[in-house]
C-alpha cells in the first residue's frame, strides 16, 4: 500500500482541556506509531447491594 501525505499549514488557536487521564495522550507534533489500549471493567456484579462483606476476589 502506498500512503502519501502532504502537510500544508497547520495553525490552531487556544486549547482548553479539563483532563487528560488513564494513560491518555495529548500531543502536538509528528509521530511515527501510536498504540493505545484501554480496559475499564464495571460489571453489574461490581455493584454489591447488601450486607457488608469484604471485597472478594473475582475469578
Amino acid at each position, binding site marked *: *500500500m*502506498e*500512503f*502519501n*501525505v*502532504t*502537510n*500544508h*499549514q*497547520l*495553525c*490552531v*488557536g*487556544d*486549547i*482548553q*482541556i*479539563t*483532563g*487528560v*487521564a*488513564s*494513560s*491518555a*495522550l*495529548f*500531543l*502536538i*507534533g*509528528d*509521530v*511515527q*506509531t*501510536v*498504540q*493505545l*489500549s*484501554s*480496559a*475499564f*471493567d*464495571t460489571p453489574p456484579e*461490581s*455493584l*454489591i*447491594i*447488601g*450486607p*457488608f462483606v*469484604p*471485597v472478594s*476476589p*473475582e*475469578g
Partner: protein
Amino acid sequence: MFSRISKVKSILSDTVSFCSTMQIGDTSYIDGNALALAVQKKSETFGSVDIQFKDYDIFKRPIYIPRLYEPVNTRFSNSNPFIRVGNINIIGISSSSVVGVGNVGHIRMESRVKHIRQVPKKVEETQIENSSND
C-alpha cells in the same frame, strides 16, 4: 525523518499527578502504563481493603493489537515546517498520561481500570425515604 517544528505560545497545567508527564522536546519512545482498582464503598469509615491486582481478570488479559497484513509505504512532504498552537490550558493530567510538545518516535499507552462499588442496602432505603419527604 522528523521535519516539522511545534510552536506553542504557552502551556499551563494545574495538576500533573500519578506518574504523568509533561514532555517538551523530541522523544524517541513513550511507554505508559496505568493499573487502577477503583473501590467505592458507602460507609462511615473507609479502612484498608485487602484486594490485589492478581485477583482480577482485567489485569491479566493480553491486549489485542490489530495485525498489519501488508507493508505500508509512507511518504511525507511538509510544505509548512511548523505546527502552530496558541495557548494551552489543561486542568489535570493524571494516571500515566502524557502531554507532549515535539516529535515522537513510537508511543504505546495502556490503561486497565477495575471499578468496584459496595452499597449497603439499609442506608440506600433510608435515603429514598428522605428524598421523598423533601
